[in-house]
């Protein structure tokens, strides 16, 4: 999905505040951002998913309280995510009696750049040619082996590796376009 402008985003937020079913559009716009943001700090897939789900549930529940102050909606989501990640880290550390200090949850500019780069990458996957997209999704999201993918797609392993290579090449080119 393409990026929206600030004023478009503002309209989306206002629409969702009036009618929660419109939240789907905000979700679509921001899903990769929240996911990538969480994935910067948390590496276990199940944990990333739990935290991402938590952020959106929180956002939806508190949408009425969101006030437009010039910063993008994503910044608000990042703050919810940062708090959630910090809470979880503290909980874990308490359990292991460890130090909390080096787990500052605030984001640096480099951090956010890396998140944005990843968001662009995830979006680019959505726009790959279908056969490449399927292989990339199965390999990286579904964590399947080349052999499993080959069996499922009824292609040779060589052909699947080829599609993976073409897909990554395509993604690199698309990221470099900007």
């Amino acid at each position, binding site marked *: 999905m393409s990026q929206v402008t600030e004023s478009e985003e503002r309209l989306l937020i206002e629409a969702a505040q009036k009618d929660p079913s419109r939240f789907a559009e905000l979700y679509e716009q921001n899903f990769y951002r929240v996911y990538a943001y969480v994935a910067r700090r948390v590496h276990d897939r199940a944990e990333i998913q739990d935290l*991402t*789900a938590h952020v959106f549930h929180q956002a939806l529940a508190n949408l009425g309280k969101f006030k437009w102050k010039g910063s993008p909606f994503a910044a608000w989501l990042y703050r919810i995510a940062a708090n959630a990640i910090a809470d979880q880290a503290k909980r874990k550390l308490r359990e292991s009696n460890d130090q909390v200090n080096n787990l500052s949850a605030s984001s640096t500019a480099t951090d956010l750049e890396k998140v944005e780069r990843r968001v662009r990458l*995830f979006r680019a996957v959505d726009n790959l040619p279908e056969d490449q997209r399927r292989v990339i999704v199965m390999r990286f999201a579904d964590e399947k*082996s080349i052999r499993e993918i080959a069996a499922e797609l009824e292609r040779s392993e060589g052909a699947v590796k080829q599609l*993976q290579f073409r897909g990554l090449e395509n993604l690199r080119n698309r990221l470099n376009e900007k």
Partner: protein
Amino acid sequence: MAERSIIDQLDDAVAALAEERQLDLTNPGPELSALVGIAEDLIGLPRETFKAKLQEQLIRRDSMSSPAQQHETNPVRSVSLYICVAGASAAIDFYQEAFGAKEVMRLTEPDGTIGHAEIQIGNAVVMISDEYPDYGTLSPKTIGGSSVKIHLDVTDVDTFAERAIKAGATLVRPIADQFYGARSGQIADPFGYTWIVSTHQRDVPIDEMQKELDKWAQEQSAKKSDEASGIKEPKMRRENRHAVTPYITVHNPAELIDFVTESFGAIEHFRATGSAGGMHAEVSIGDSVVMIGGAEHIQPMPTAIHLYVPDVDQVYERALRAGAKSLMPVVDQPYGERSGGVEDLHGNRWYIATPFVPLQTIAPDLHTVTVYFHPIGAQRFIDFVTDAFGGTELMRHAEGDMIMHAKVQIGDSVIELGEARYPTQPLPTAVYLYVNDVDAVYEQALKAGGTSMLPPTDQPYGDRNAWVKDPFDNVWYVAAPIRVGA
């Protein structure tokens, strides 16, 4: 060792990343390095199923609330309903048809048993599983009922209940305006759960509700003491009555009322003592009214009734516990129902049945209580009700000339019959029959071969009444409310 192609090298790197192994790339060229960098960022690419499922969760949590549900401010449900049903798959189908539920997910075992399923009704999620006796997960069918009633807020309770009943639910309490500001009633699903369906109408302050409840409690106790002192109530209920209502006359009506209450969940609406010293009472069972009357000195007139219930096994057991004797144990019948029979202490025969399909798909006007006639000469009986009361034959099952089973529509009701073929039959019966024009129907009935027991007469209880005995000794109390100013 031969040089591996860049495609293979890249895949080695991706495999290492996936397994969180150290990358071992000897002299990677700039192209391979760049692609490995992309692959590193792709590790943890979100799963499409997760993205879609989370969206579904968010949307169903908040956006599906209909206007009636918008007064709920907190969309997060801390408590959800988890029901166990015998036949979870059929139940999911039923809830979809009857309540407009949506299936969210289901997990099934290889044999089809549902281990866990979720459906959505309005903005709530209801979890469902089949029975797991080894884990103490039992359905109302097995444990003989559920003490939990489920409250369902809907936008239009009348339409909702109508659809549910069409799909096979049974009306337990009619839909009516309630003092607490809701219009509501109760329906039972075929799996043993009762749903209180309700539409919010107005906010009522709690102290006002309490006052109303106090008033009601007072009325109840006054009514009880009136009954004890034999004071007659002039009013009779006419709502929720169908054209055909059985009138069961027994020596001890109070005892029979206890029995139908205990066995069939009957609700008593009215009880009075008539001028001849006999009792007249009215109870509702499911969507039907049954009149019960009689006294020691009055000739009893037991009745056979086909009683359609959501769960025949449970009702049959309850009837036996309440003192009935079994006529036939509960079995699946080749004619599309699971049924068993009991005879109560007063000689009434109850053919208790749960059809395999929703009741109203058998005949739209088939009701919980359906009178079953056993005439000698079933064909002549059908002719009589056709000529006398404008009956329409809906179906028959015959073996040779003998009508084993037939259904005839009269007004908004269906009666059933089968040729008398057992010693306990024909078992002539009495029926209260609501018509539009008592005098005309009375004339018709006499012409068709009926005998007059009472010509059309205005009765003190507000009905115009004529009594006709048919050639098979059944008594028809033909009635209509007295028209004011007519």
